[in-house]
């Protein structure tokens, strides 16, 4: 018995203090305060648990029939009842004070140096810097092959007929990818040591924007705007995820934040401004050019795989009635105008979103052209130019 106790005393603290098992401490003052509160709560629970379960363990051991054949006869004691009602009340009151104080601080969104509007949509984030006229989408960049590869799974390929998967290579890439599922094409860039205010909103269902290292988790609710804030002292890359079930690809909606020094951030803002000018120049050039079918199809395939394949599948077969097949699909081989309308404006009440604000004229033209020439699709009207898309906006 004593040996067992010693062993437990040696192991338990190790386990409790091991980094992997504990809440992430994070990098902001807020996340560290919360970690402190969590630790205090945990220890209060552990101490109460040791006392209660200890008493229980003792009685189980000492008051077994074989050791204690005659039961005692007491079954009421007002004093004891009052004591064990009051003690928890006192403990709770003591705990409530720091929690309430911390909460008041968390809810103080005033005096921010920078405001970012975060808009969730199925299954990506859009970041808008309200002071800087910068806005972009942030999509998960982990390739589907890595996700859908079963290699090494003991049920092997028999059960594993997911499109895009089935490969040992995909699994190897997945295993080697340190940031599997937690990587994006365009991370949110923030300055260090400045109070940043986040406004969260949504275009479709409820999402929730979470970065554990900042201790910021705020729901993004369609039709409403919520507030949160952070102030990150250390530069670095921080990763999180959407935490509110938001449909099929809820697991594939990561948050990546790059925190840079203030100078680097200011430089980045300037770079974005220049890039935007260049892009608008490029857009003009794109729509003045008459593209060949081959050019559009080749760009379109990339756009399709990046944005459309998750629902409609790489082979255009779709998934049931929720995600209709595009191979031979009513719209994909029907009149061009309807196809343009569906891609640009989406279909209300479904997961088919409006792509007009998300993709350039060239990319929309390319993806529509691709869909009308891919697989078995061969409608007469099989190519659309970026200019047409520009005029449809």
């Amino acid at each position, binding site marked *: 018995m004593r040996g067992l106790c010693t062993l437990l005393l040696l192991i338990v603290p190790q386990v409790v203090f091991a980094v992997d098992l504990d809440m992430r401490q994070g990098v902001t003052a807020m996340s560290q305060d919360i970690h402190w509160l969590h630790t205090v709560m945990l220890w209060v629970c552990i101490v109460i648990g040791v006392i209660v379960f200890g008493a229980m363990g003792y009685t189980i051991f000492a008051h*077994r029939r074989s050791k204690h054949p005659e039961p005692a006869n007491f079954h009421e004691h007002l004093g004891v009842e009052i004591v064990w009602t009051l003690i928890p009340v006192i403990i709770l009151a003591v705990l409530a004070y720091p929690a309430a104080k911390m909460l008041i601080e968390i809810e103080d969104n005033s005096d921010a140096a920078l405001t970012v509007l975060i808009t969730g949509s199925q299954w990506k984030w859009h970041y808008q810097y309200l002071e800087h006229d910068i806005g972009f989408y942030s999509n998960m960049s982990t390739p589907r092959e890595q996700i859908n590869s079963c290699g090494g799974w003991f049920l092997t390929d028999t059960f594993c007929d997911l499109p895009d998967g089935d490969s040992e290579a995909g699994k190897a890439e997945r295993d080697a990818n340190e940031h599997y599922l937690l990587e994006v094409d365009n991370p949110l860039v923030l300055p260090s040591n400045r109070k940043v205010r986040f406004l969260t909103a949504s275009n479709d269902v409820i999402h929730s924007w979470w970065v554990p290292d900042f201790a910021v988790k705020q729901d993004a609710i369609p039709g409403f705007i919520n507030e949160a804030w952070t102030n990150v002292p250390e530069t670095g890359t921080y990763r999180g995820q959407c935490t509110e079930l938001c449909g099929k690809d809820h697991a594939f909606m990561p948050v990546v934040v790059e925190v840079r020094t203030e100078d680097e951030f200011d430089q980045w803002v300037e770079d974005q401004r220049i890039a935007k000018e260049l892009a608008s120049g490029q857009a003009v050039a794109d729509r003045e050019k008459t593209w060949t079918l081959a050019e559009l199809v080749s760009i379109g395939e990339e756009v399709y795989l990046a944005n459309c394949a998750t629902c409609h599948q790489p082979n255009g077969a779709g998934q049931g009635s929720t995600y209709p097949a595009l191979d031979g699909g009513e719209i994909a081989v029907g009149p061009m105008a309807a196809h343009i309308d569906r891609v640009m404006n989406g279909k209300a009440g479904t997961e088919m979103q409006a792509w007009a604000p998300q993709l350039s004229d060239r990319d929309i033209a390319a993806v529509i052209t691709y869909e009308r020439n891919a697989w078995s699709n061969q409608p007469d009207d099989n190519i659309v130019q970026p200019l047409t898309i520009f005029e449809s906006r």
Partner: protein
Amino acid sequence: MVAHAEHIPHRSGLAAFLSRWLLTTNHKEIGSLYLWFAFSMFFVGGALAMGIRLELFMPGIQLIEPAFYNQLVTMHGLIMVFGAVMPAFVGLANWQIPLMIGAPDMALPRLNNFSFWILPFAFGMLLSSFFMEGGAPNFGWTFYAPLSTTYGPDSTDFFIFGVHLMGISSVLGAINIMVTIFNLRTPGMKLMEMPLFVWTWLITAFLLITAIPVLAGAVTMVLTDRHFGTSFFSADGGGDPVMFQHIFWFFGHPEVYIMILPGFGIASQIIPTFARKKLFGYNSMVYATASIAILSYVVWGHHMFTTGMPLAGELFFMFCTMLIAVPTGVKVFNWVATMWRGSMTFETPMLFAIAFVILFTIGGFSGLMLAMVPADFQYHDTYFVVAHFHYVLYPGAIFGTMAAVYYWLPKWSGHMVDEWWGKLHFWTAIVFVNLTFFPMHFSGLAGMPRRIVDYSHQFQDFNLVSSFGAMGLGLTQVLFLFIVIKTIRGGEPATDKVWESAEGLEWTVPSPAPLHTFETPPPWPINETETHEGAA
């Protein structure tokens, strides 16, 4: 009643079987129906959980596509909550409450039949949605708008109808239990003399009657938003998606206690029996249960701290939630005090009851941690929450039910449970339940959101352990099925009293309990000498 029972044996084969079980108004038969129904739903819900855990065995998508994964998660929750835990408790109430208060049957026997027979249709409909175009409901058992309104699959309407039917069943069942307890107690039995199981069920019945209609309102609003042009939950038409969450959790939090209070009652029956000592603090147990029930109506907001609730709301819900720890603590202390200086033996029901107290308390601890709003910002919607409510529900509600089955099965079947098998079930269940759910605390603290089909490498080890544990836990329950069938089919005959120091009216009737008991009200308080003769 008697004439009815005599009439039945004249039919034969299937007709007799059907007319017996379809038309029965006997509380024991309906209790058995409820329990078997709950048991079968437990396996269906469990099979869905196995699918979830298989997929989460390692990173990557191997078996289950994301869209189907969401259906599994949703249906697992719905079936376990409404199909397994709730009907199991109603089944126990049906069997035991009349026996424990000396009533000949439930007060409203035909209603009782109706409440049960709604359920197979409700769940048949819900399960059939797996085979519909667009698949089963996929928005989580909490069916937050607008995922369930604008974006819900077509089968959402079947889900709504199914929930209405379950709700009707629950409310009618609750009314029946309440009326029975208030009117059919044997003369002389005061309310404050009722067994704790009856008390906790009485309070649960009040919770059901007040909470279920709120759920009915919520699903109806979802229905009208979907089909009749209303905008309760859509900001486009002046509504509010967060209002859905307020309404849902106003039902949902009392629901949590609906799923645990009868378990408290069961532990309060079993622990004194095997400690051979009266329950410590009977009155405070009753008051604590009532306080928990009342507080359960003012804490719903703690599910919604990240929705942008104003500071005042967050503080109110935090303080109220913390307050629930007080009566819950009183109950736990009372159970320990009941055991204190008793003379304990550890038959299977006692083992499950003790595990119930310990593991439920662990779930209570994580609940207290979740109540702290700042910390909740980190815990919310992660596996920490999944660990928390599974600790409350599996070793809580489900171990409670299992303890009850082991405790009363000898009375129902006339055979003692083979202790060797019972203990094997207990020890395997206790190992696997912890192996499944304890690592979820760690994956949650490390930052793994709930309801995700795939996860990054950092969560791999904990998920592997959880999945391994879940497979074992699933197999363990097959063992439970085997034990129940084995006990029903035969075994050492049970005495009337079954357990040496069991107290209560249910132990004064023969084992197995005949179809009709207490046709004349038994004397109260129990005549001790008479009981002992029966036991000998």
